[in-house]
C-alpha cells in the first residue's frame, strides 16, 4: 500500500499553485529573441513580453493576466519599458519582436505599479491581509510591488453596497473583495463557453454579476472556471473557506465521465487525517488542459458520505441483517462459496463483472481471477451496457476497438457531426473545447431526437438539427452516405488506396432504399435537410464524427457504429487531426476496462480467447490452462441464473440492479443466485441481493491508471489512504488466493508491468513512465514510444479499412395504440450515471429528481402540465415521476434521466439489445404516459385494447 506521509511519485511535496506564465502560448513558425532585464530569451514570435519574461524566469507583476485566458490588459500592473518605444506598454498585450529590449524593473514602472496597487487597495476591504486565506494573488502582488500606503483617505468604495452571494453550494461570491479584473467573466466565456458572467454597470460602478441574479439562479453551470481564475477571495470554494489552504498536492484523474480530466487534489493533513481541500483541474492534463466541470471539480464529497461502507459484511440469506466481519472472514466466505458452487454446479456456474469506474489494474485482476482462479471466461464489464457496440463496430471496420483521435483534434475540425450525444451535459469539458472551436467558425450538425444545448444557445447555433427518431440511426447514416456517394462527394482516391469492399459497398449504399427520400418517414428527417447536412460533412476540409450512447444503445448499435465508420471512410475523414470517429465514453474507464480483457471472448488488448498463441502468453505466466471458448455476457448470466445454471457472481463497483435494463428481470436473476458478492462504496441496489459485501475505495484512494475515451492512460494517485483499509485490487487478489490461485503484487505498478509485458499495445507503459511523461495514448509501442494521439494514419490498424454493408433492420420495439410514445434516456450535467456518487453531494441541488420531458402536443392531449406527477409505463413495467413540458422533444418522443433509484427508469426499459454485443436498447422503449392519479381509469381500457395487440417481443 502506498504510504501517504511521503509525496507520491513525481510530486514536489509542499503546496504550490501551478505556474502561471500570464498569457497563453503562441504557435508560430518564426522565433523572436528578446532581451529582458539583460537576459536573452527566444520565444515563438508573437508571444507576449510577459510570457517571454516568465520563460526567462522573470515574474512581471500581474492581476488580470493568467495563461488560460487571452491577454486583456486591464489591471495595468504589468507595465514595462521597451527601448525605443513610447510610454510604458503592458507586457501582457505587447508581443515580442525580434531584438526587442525590455526592462521590467525600472524606477518608473515600479512607481506606476505601486500607485496602481494603491488605487486597488483604496477600494478594497481594510482587512485584506486577514481575509485572503493564503490564496490571494492580489495580496501577494501588493507585497511584491511594495504598496503599503493608501493615501486617498476615506473615499467612495463599493464595499458597503456589496452583498455576499453564498447561493452556490460549492463556492461563494464576495463582491467586496472583487477587483473587476474580469478573469471570471473571461473564463466563463473563453474556457467554459457558457457566458454566464458579465460586468454590470460601468466605470467605478462596474460589478461582476452572473447576469443580475444570484449564482444559483443564473445560467452558471458551476464548472469552477471562474473560481479558479479569480485572483482574490471574491470567488472562492466553500471548502477552502472552511478548511484553509492545502499543504500538499496529489496529481490524479477524475473518476466521472470518459473525458478523464487531470486534477490536482489539494490536500492537508496526513494519514487518517488527510482531507481534500479542493480539486483543481490541471493545466498539464492532456484531456482537459486546466478545465473541469461541476462533477469533477466539486462533487467528490461522496467519499466521506455517511452512506459509505467501511467494513466487510456478510449474511447467509438476503433476508437477513448484515453482519460486520473481518476482511479474512468476508474473503473466506466469498471464496468458499464460489468454490462450493463450482463443486456442485460446475466450473461455469460462477462469474464476475468488473467496473468501468475502477482502475485498469483493478479490472485486470478481476478478469485474471475469473479466467485463472474461476477457470472460466464468465467475465463481463458494464461497458456491455454502454459502449460494447463501439468496440465491435470500430474493430470490424478499422481494426481497433477505440476512437480514432485525441480530444484536441476537434480544434482542427471544420464540421462536427454529433450523433446521439449531449456533451454539454455528459462530457462537459469536451463540450467546452468543442464550443470554443464552434466560436472560431467551425460548424456542427446535431443528429439527436432532443434539441440539446449544442443546437442553439449562447454563441452556438448548429448548422442543422436533425431530430432522428429513436431507432432509425442506421437508416439515417445510410442516407447520409447515400447522398455523399450518389452526389459524387466521396473521396475516390482514399477509398481505392485505403479501403476494401469498396465496389460492393458503393453499390449497396447507392441503392434507392438508402436515399434520404426513401428513409424520410423512418428517420423523421426531411430529405433535403439531410442532404444538406451530408454535403456539409462531405465537403468540409476536416469533418469529424462524435457520438455517444444515443448510437450504441440500440438493437442496431453495432451496425450504426460501422455505418459511421463507413461515412468517415468514404469521405476520407480518417487518419489525421480534425477528423475521425470518436466515441464519447460514458464512464471514466470504459475504454480501459475493455482494453483489460473484461469481455468474455477476449483477453487484454482485444485478442480473442480462441487464439492459442495469446492464451499461451497467459498460461505460461499464470500457470493455469485457460478455457478457449467465450464465456457468458451479463444478460446471459441473468438468463442462466434464472435457468439455474449460473449461481455465483462477483460484482465490482457496478449497480447492475439499477443500471441494467428491465429491472424486474435482473432482480429475479440476482434473487435466484446462491452467492452474490458485491464490492462497492455503498450498499447499492444490487447489494440488496448480496451475501457478501466488500467495501471498495473511491478514486481518491486508488493507485493506478484510467484510460479515457481518447485512449489516454492517466495516472490515478491516492490523495487519501483507503478508508476501509485495503486496496481494491488486493481484495480481488485475496479472493483468488483463497480459491487457491495466489496473485501476489507488491503494488498496482506491478499489475501494470504485467499488463505491459503481456499486451503489445501497452508495451511501453509503466507507472514510472507515466509519472515522468504525464500521460500516454495507446498504442505505446516501439514504433510509437510516446503513444498515438491519432490512429490509422497512412494505414488502418487492420490494414485496409473495411466497408461493411450496413443494412437498416428496424427494432422490434414498436409503438402501438397502448404504448404510442417512444421513451429515450440520457444524462444531465449535475448527475452521473445511476447517481451513486453525485446524489451524495450537493449536486442534488440542481437535479433532485428525474424528470420526464414531454412535447407540448403530447402533454396537451394527456392533460399533462409541467410539475405533474405522471405514470410512465411500458410493456415490462411502470414508474412514476414528474413531467416537464418541453419543446426540446419532438412530438411522440419522451425523455428522462436514470440518475435516481427512486424513479427507476430502467423499470420500463426492455430486454432488447444490440444484435452483435447485447448492449441494451435503452434508447427505444414504447411507452405511455398519463397523469398519475388518473391511471385507474385508463388501465382497464388499455388492458382491453392489449388483447388485440400482438405481443411484439422477441
Amino acid at each position: 500500500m502506498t504510504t501517504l506521509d511521503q509525496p507520491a511519485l513525481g510530486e514536489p511535496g509542499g503546496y504550490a499553485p501551478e505556474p502561471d506564465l500570464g498569457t497563453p502560448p503562441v504557435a508560430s513558425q518564426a522565433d523572436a529573441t528578446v532581451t529582458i532585464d539583460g537576459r536573452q530569451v527566444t520565444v515563438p514570435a508573437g508571444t507576449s513580453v510577459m510570457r517571454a519574461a516568465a520563460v526567462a524566469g522573470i515574474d512581471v507583476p500581474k492581476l488580470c493576466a493568467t495563461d488560460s485566458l487571452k491577454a486583456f490588459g486591464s489591471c495595468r500592473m504589468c507595465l514595462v519599458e521597451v527601448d525605443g518605444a513610447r510610454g510604458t506598454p503592458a507586457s501582457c498585450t505587447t508581443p515580442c519582436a525580434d531584438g526587442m529590449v525590455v526592462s521590467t524593473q525600472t524606477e518608473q514602472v515600479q512607481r506606476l505599479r505601486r500607485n496602481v496597487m494603491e488605487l486597488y487597495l483604496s477600494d478594497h476591504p481594510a482587512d485584506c491581509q486577514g481575509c485572503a486565506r493564503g490564496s490571494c494573488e492580489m495580496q501577494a502582488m501588493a507585497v511584491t510591488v511594495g504598496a503599503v500606503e493608501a493615501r486617498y483617505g476615506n473615499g467612495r468604495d463599493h464595499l458597503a453596497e456589496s452583498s455576499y452571494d453564498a447561493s452556490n453550494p460549492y463556492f461563494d461570491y464576495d463582491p467586496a473583495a472583487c477587483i473587476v479584473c474580469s478573469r471570471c467573466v473571461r473564463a466563463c466565456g473563453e474556457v467554459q463557453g457558457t457566458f454566464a458572467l458579465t460586468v454590470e454597470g460601468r466605470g467605478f460602478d462596474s460589478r461582476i454579476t452572473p447576469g443580475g441574479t444570484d449564482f444559483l439562479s443564473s445560467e452558471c453551470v458551476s464548472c469552477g472556471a471562474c473560481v479558479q481564475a479569480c485572483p482574490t477571495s471574491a470567488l472562492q470554494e466553500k471548502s477552502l473557506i472552511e478548511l484553509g489552504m492545502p499543504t500538499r498536492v496529489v496529481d490524479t484523474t477524475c473518476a466521472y465521465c470518459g473525458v478523464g480530466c487531470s486534477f490536482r487534489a489539494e490536500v492537508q493533513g496526513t494519514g487518517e487525517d488527510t482531507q481534500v481541500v479542493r480539486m483543481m483541474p490541471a493545466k498539464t492534463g492532456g484531456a482537459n488542459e486546466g478545465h473541469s466541470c461541476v462533477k469533477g471539480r466539486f462533487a467528490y464529497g461522496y467519499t466521506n458520505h455517511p452512506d459509505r461502507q467501511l467494513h466487510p459484511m456478510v449474511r447467509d440469506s438476503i433476508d437477513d441483517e448484515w453482519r460486520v466481519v473481518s476482511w479474512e472472514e468476508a474473503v473466506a466466505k466469498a471464496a468458499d462459496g464460489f468454490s462450493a458452487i463450482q463443486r456442485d454446479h460446475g466450473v461455469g456456474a460462477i462469474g464476475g463483472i468488473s467496473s468501468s469506474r475502477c482502475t485498469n489494474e483493478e479490472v485486470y485482476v478481476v478478469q485474471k481471477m475469473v479466467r485463472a482462479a474461476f477457470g472460466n471466461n464468465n467475465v463481463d464489464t458494464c461497458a456491455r451496457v454502454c459502449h460494447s457496440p463501439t468496440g465491435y463496430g470500430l474493430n470490424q471496420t478499422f481494426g481497433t476497438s477505440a476512437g480514432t483521435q485525441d480530444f484536441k483534434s476537434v480544434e482542427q475540425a471544420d464540421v462536427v457531426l454529433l450523433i446521439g450525444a449531449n456533451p454539454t451535459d455528459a462530457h462537459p469539458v469536451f463540450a467546452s473545447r468543442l464550443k470554443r472551436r464552434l466560436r472560431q467558425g467551425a460548424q456542427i450538425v446535431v443528429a439527436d431526437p432532443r434539441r440539446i444545448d449544442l443546437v442553439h444557445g449562447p454563441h452556438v447555433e448548429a448548422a442543422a438539427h436533425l431530430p432522428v427518431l429513436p431507432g432509425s440511426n442506421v437508416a439515417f447514416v445510410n442516407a447520409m452516405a447515400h447522398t455523399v456517394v450518389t452526389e459524387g462527394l466521396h473521396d475516390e482516391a482514399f477509398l481505392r488506396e485505403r479501403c476494401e469492399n469498396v465496389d460492393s459497398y458503393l453499390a449497396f449504399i447507392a441503392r434507392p432504399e438508402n436515399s434520404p427520400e426513401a428513409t424520410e418517414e423512418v428517420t423523421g428527417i426531411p430529405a433535403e435537410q439531410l442532404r444538406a447536412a451530408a454535403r456539409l460533412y462531405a465537403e468540409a476540409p476536416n469533418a469529424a464524427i462524435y457520438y455517444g450512447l444515443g448510437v450504441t444503445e440500440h438493437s442496431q448499435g453495432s451496425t450504426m457504429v460501422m455505418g459511421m465508420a463507413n461515412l468517415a471512410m468514404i469521405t476520407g475523414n480518417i487518419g489525421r487531426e480534425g477528423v475521425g470517429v470518436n466515441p464519447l465514453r460514458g464512464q471514466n474507464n470504459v475504454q480501459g476496462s475493455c482494453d483489460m480483457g473484461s469481455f468474455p471472448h477476449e483477453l487484454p488488448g482485444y485478442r480473442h480467447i480462441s487464439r492459442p498463441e495469446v492464451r499461451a502468453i497467459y498460461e505460461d505466466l499464470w500457470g493455469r490452462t485457460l478455457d478457449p471458448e467465450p464465456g457468458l455476457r451479463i444478460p446471459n448470466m441473468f438468463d442462466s441464473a434464472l435457468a439455474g445454471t449460473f449461481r455465483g457472481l462477483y460484482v465490482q463497483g457496478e449497480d447492475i440492479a439499477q443500471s441494467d435494463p428491465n429491472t424486474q428481470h435482473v432482480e429475479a436473476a440476482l434473487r435466484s443466485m446462491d452467492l452474490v458478492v458485491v464490492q462497492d462504496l455503498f450498499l447499492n441496489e444490487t447489494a440488496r441481493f448480496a451475501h457478501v459485501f466488500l467495501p471498495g475505495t473511491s478514486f481518491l484512494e486508488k493507485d493506478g491508471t484510467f484510460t479515457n475515451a481518447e485512449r489516454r492512460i492517466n495516472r490515478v494517485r491516492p490523495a487519501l489512504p483507503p478508508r476501509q483499509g485495503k486496496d481494491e485490487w488486493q481484495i480481488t487478489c485475496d479472493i483468488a488466493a483463497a480459491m487457491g490461485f495466489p496473485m501476489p503484487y507488491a503494488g498496482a505498478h506491478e499489475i501494470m508491468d504485467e499488463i505491459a509485458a503481456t499486451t503489445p499495445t501497452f508495451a511501453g507503459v509503466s507507472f514510472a513512465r507515466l509519472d515522468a511523461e504525464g500521460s500516454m495514448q495507446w498504442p505505446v509501442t516501439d514504433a510509437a514510444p510516446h503513444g498515438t494521439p491519432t490512429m490509422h494514419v497512412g494505414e488502418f490498424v487492420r490494414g485496409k479499412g473495411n466497408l461493411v454493408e450496413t443494412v437498416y433492420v428496424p427494432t422490434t420495439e414498436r409503438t402501438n395504440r397502448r404504448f404510442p410514445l417512444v421513451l429515450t434516456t440520457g444524462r444531465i450535467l449535475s448527475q452521473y450515471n445511476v447517481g451513486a456518487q453525485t446524489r451524495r453531494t450537493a449536486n442534488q441541488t440542481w437535479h433532485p429528481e428525474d424528470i420526464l420531458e414531454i412535447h407540448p402536443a403530447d402533454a396537451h392531449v394527456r392533460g399533462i402540465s409541467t410539475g405533474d406527477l405522471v405514470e410512465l409505463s411500458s410493456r415490462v413495467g411502470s414508474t412514476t415521476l414528474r413531467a416537464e413540458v418541453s419543446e426540446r422533444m419532438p412530438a411522440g418522443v419522451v425523455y428522462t434521466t436514470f440518475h435516481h433509484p427512486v424513479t427507476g427508469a430502467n423499470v420500463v426499459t426492455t430486454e432488447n439489445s444490440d444484435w452483435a454485443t447485447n448492449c441494451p436498447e435503452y434508447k427505444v422503449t414504447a411507452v405511455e404516459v398519463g397523469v398519475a392519479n388518473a391511471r385507474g381509469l385508463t388501465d382497464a381500457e388499455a388492458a382491453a385494447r392489449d388483447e388485440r395487440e400482438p405481443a411484439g417481443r422477441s
Partner: protein
Amino acid sequence: MSTPTSTPASPEAGPDRSALVRAVAEHHRDQRGPLLPVLHEVLAEFGYVDAADVPVIADVLNLSAAEVHGVVSFYHDVRTTPPPTHVVALCRAEACQAVGAESLYAAAQERAASGEMGDTEVQQVFCLGNCALGPSGTVDGRLLGRLDAARLTELTAGWR
C-alpha cells in the same frame, strides 16, 4: 444551470410583450452585431427594457442572458424602468458650463424635486453638439439652445 424562468418584472411584461420582443429580435438577428438595434427598437416600442425581455433577446440572438444584461447596464440610454411622463436633459459639459449650465441644471433639479414639474426626470447629459449656443438641453426630446431658467420654467409650465 437550468435556464432561469424569469417572472415578468412588471405588469406590462406579459406574454404579448414577450412575443413582440421576440419578433423585434428576430427581425434584426441576421444583421451583424444586432443587439443594440434590438435594444433601440424595444426602447422605441416600450420606453424601457424589462428584465423579462433579456432572456428572450438572448435566446434569439444566441447570447447568454448575462451578456445581454451586461450590455443593457452599460449604456445610459437603455432604461430598465418605465420612463417618466417628461424628461428634461440638460448639458453639463464644458462649453455649456462656460455659459452657466451648472446653475441651470441645479435650478432644474430643484424644481423637479419640489414637484412643480410633475412626473419629470431631470437628467444630465454631456454634449448635444450645440456648443456654440449653450446652455443646451432637450425638453421631451426637443433640442434647445441658449436655455435659461426662465425659459425652462416657461417650457415646463403646466406639467403634472
